[in-house]
């Protein structure tokens, strides 16, 4: 997530609010974080104030009773309606929800019950009060939001936390598609699945990764014994309740040769899933540490990917490719490629500027740019 920093005044709290650089009605002020460029603005009733203005030791008295961060740089990444987290002890402003993005996610927890060898966000402890902050955040999200991800860590880990969070999402944005990104391991418990289903969310989709077509290989990648079995049990439990499922396969050195067999395994064992996605790897976290072992050039795996995608499409299964660039894919796969990279991680390189297909292209993860620089040149551009 993007974040900015500034100089805080001496409040010691963590709070969330909605950004506005204009005055809002008084009843909306208690949830609004007001961006000011002039210290004479009326700031009564606002949740907090941020400004690029540098304030010396003499803080105006009206600012003493309100959380206040000054000397903030790079305001251009903040837009009205964005939701931010202010950590007053450090002066950190983290953008939690971008109004103009379709890729917003809530991090239900940072903890995880597996240690995937290519994990971009390894498990860590949750900061204090993160549960409360998430619930507050959801309350502030625009009701007209189309889609929101619930991710982690492994969001199913704190069961009560997740249930509360899903209920709050359902209450606040009943129209939204809620994408729950889970490894599905804990969904092996039927009563857990039942509890989620009973919330009654109209448009809930479980996005579940499976990295292999056999147990030992999948368990090795997840670094957790029996995770293959548990996740499959979870998938069957979800199917028993006719839930929507997306299967996700991250493509990397350990599994790329078996993509066609993985596609076949999915079709024969999980024909009930709504969607299957093949995803390019993101070289962050553990993947960055293990990059030499994990990285495989798209040019080496495209043939396997093509076979797998066309196999599923031929069978009338919905299938997509995430995180790949059109110029590296054969044209037969263009229709399956989606713009899937979160806005804050997505970039293009110089060669892309003149590309006619740029608007439709997935672009890159920042983290893989150096690898892709080697591959993308005028010759490859189509």
């Amino acid at each position, binding site marked *: 997530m993007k974040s900015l920093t500034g100089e805080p005044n001496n409040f010691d709290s963590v709070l969330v609010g909605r950004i506005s650089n204009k005055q809002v009605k008084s009843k909306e002020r208690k949830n609004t974080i007001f961006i000011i460029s002039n210290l004479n603005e009326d700031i009564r009733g606002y949740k907090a104030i941020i400004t690029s203005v540098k304030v010396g030791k003499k803080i105006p008295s009206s600012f003493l009773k309100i959380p206040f961060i000054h000397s903030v740089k790079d305001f251009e990444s903040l837009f009205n309606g964005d939701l931010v987290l202010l950590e007053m002890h450090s002066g950190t402003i983290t953008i939690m929800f971008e109004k103009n993005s379709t890729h917003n996610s809530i991090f239900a927890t940072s903890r995880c019950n597996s240690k995937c060898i290519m994990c971009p966000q390894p498990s860590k402890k949750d900061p204090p009060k993160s549960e409360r902050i998430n619930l507050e955040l959801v309350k502030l999200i625009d009701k007209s939001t189309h889609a929101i991800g619930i991710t982690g860590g492994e969001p199913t880990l704190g069961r009560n936390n997740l249930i509360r969070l899903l209920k709050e999402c359902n209450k606040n944005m009943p129209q939204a598609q809620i994408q729950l990104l889970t490894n599905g391991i804990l969904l092996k418990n039927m009563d857990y699945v039942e509890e989620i289903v009973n919330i009654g969310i109209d448009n809930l989709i479980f996005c579940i990764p499976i990295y292999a077509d056999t*147990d030992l290989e999948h368990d090795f990648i997840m670094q957790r014994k029996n995770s293959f079995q548990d996740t499959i049990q979870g998938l069957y439990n979800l199917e028993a309740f006719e839930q929507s499922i997306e299967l996700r396969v991250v493509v990397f050195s350990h599994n790329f040769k078996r993509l066609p067999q993985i596609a076949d395994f999915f079709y024969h064992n999980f024909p009930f899933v709504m969607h299957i996605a093949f995803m390019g790897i993101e070289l962050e976290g553990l993947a960055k540490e293990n990059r030499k072992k994990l990285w495989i050039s798209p040019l080496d795996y495209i043939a396997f990917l093509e076979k797998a995608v066309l196999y599923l499409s031929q*069978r*009338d299964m919905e299938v997509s490719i995430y995180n790949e660039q059109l110029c590296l894919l054969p*044209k037969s796969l*263009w229709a399956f490629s989606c713009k899937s990279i979160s806005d804050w991680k997505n970039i293009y390189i110089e060669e892309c500027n003149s590309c006619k297909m740029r608007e*439709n292209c997935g672009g890159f993860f920042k983290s893989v740019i150096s690898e892709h620089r080697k591959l993308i040149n005028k010759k490859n551009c189509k």
Partner: protein
Amino acid sequence: MRTIKPYTILPYRFMRFKDEVLLVNEAGDFIFVKNTDFDKFRKFELRTQAETFLNLKSKHLVTESNLALPVYQLATKYRTKKSFLNDFTALHIFILTLRCNQKCRYCQAGSENETCYEHDMDISIAKKCVDYVFKSPSPVIKIEFQGGEPLLNFEVLKFVVKYAKALNKKHKKDLEFVVCTNLIALSDKILKFLKKNKILISTSLDGPRNIHDANRILPNGEGTYEIVLKNIKRAQVTTGAQNVAALMVTTKSNFHNLEKVVDEYIAKGFDSIFFRTLHPFGRAARERNTLGYDIEEFVRNYKKALNYIIEINLSGKYFSEIYATIVLSRILTPFSTGFVDLQSPAGTGIGCAVYSQNGDVFVSDEARMLAKMGDLRFRIGNVKENTYKEIFDGKTLREIISSSCVETLPQCSECAFQMYCGADPVRNYYAQGSLIGHKPTSEFHERNYLIIKHLFELIRQDDPEIMNVFWSWITNRSIYDIKRINIRELNEKPNR
């Protein structure tokens, strides 16, 4: 000396194909492996890191690790393949009358003269039959009108449709009607009713004029080609071409010329054909020498015609052969198919029931024909005399069903094609004298074995173009559609 085996082999059946072996697991998933790999596999000499081992493991044929999981997944897949059993009888055939206005040389329906009105189903029996139809727990109910020529008893057809629709207001089932008619008696009034009630039309067309008129004739001996085609056209125009299908019967007159039959079907606006074999009943049994053929010869012609149809599809025109489509779905998809002639246990009674004009209930149309020939073996009751439970939970039906599981039938039990095939106890009984039958001399077995083997040979060759054709049939899309998906313009697909 006992040695510890490096892996556990799960139940499978196999068949040799030249230098490869077809292995099929308990749920019908299959894989081809090289003979040499198969030998290593069965002797426990395959390395567990070998690609072949992983492929076999992925297909639930072997495991060196978790055993419970593949067994659990096989069970799940097996239930899916057998899910036709969940719902019980879906297809209900009403013999509205035995009267017919044609006198086809191969008639196997036991038709009577057009003026013998005593062979019509009356309203009171029709009502009782519909009551019983709605006692079936199936969420899908398909009522198919047959005869004789069902349009000759149109008043009762109308009654059945109206009464079934009225009952369905309460039952809320997925209700569908089909009328199997030669279309000779089609009138504007009838057509209007069929259209209004969305009744599908299934008619008969054996091929071009000379082939059709060889067998499908009026009582005075005249051919019916002209009038049938005129009425097919009328029906297509009024109810929409997709609501009119045609069936053909393969006889000596057309089975060397199946390509011509295909051309005729395409020219007349049909997008599928079903190469049906002759059933040795009624007139067909008596004229066997002039009409009949040997199964091997039939399959040879069938293969030739199938290749011809594949070529037509490769040129961009969607046209399917229904029997191949059903068999391919059974082989290539994890799903169950509804076709009652290829089920285990057999679809007799539990997939399909036949209500005769006098209220007798039979497990299939062949069963009804046997009764006509004097053998009531497969009459499971009468709607006026018996309760639903007596008919559909009686000793006779239970005996037929328990004798028709290919899993337990001699020779079928070890056949690699078991999951794709089915049993036909009625046919076994009349052709071979027992419900179980005798495989080596069974025509039903021979036809299915040869056709399934042929399709597997094509699957083994894995020509991507031909596989696209097969999947276009299974998923009911034209090959153009399947290919277009691959080159679909980007902007047609919304970003997720």
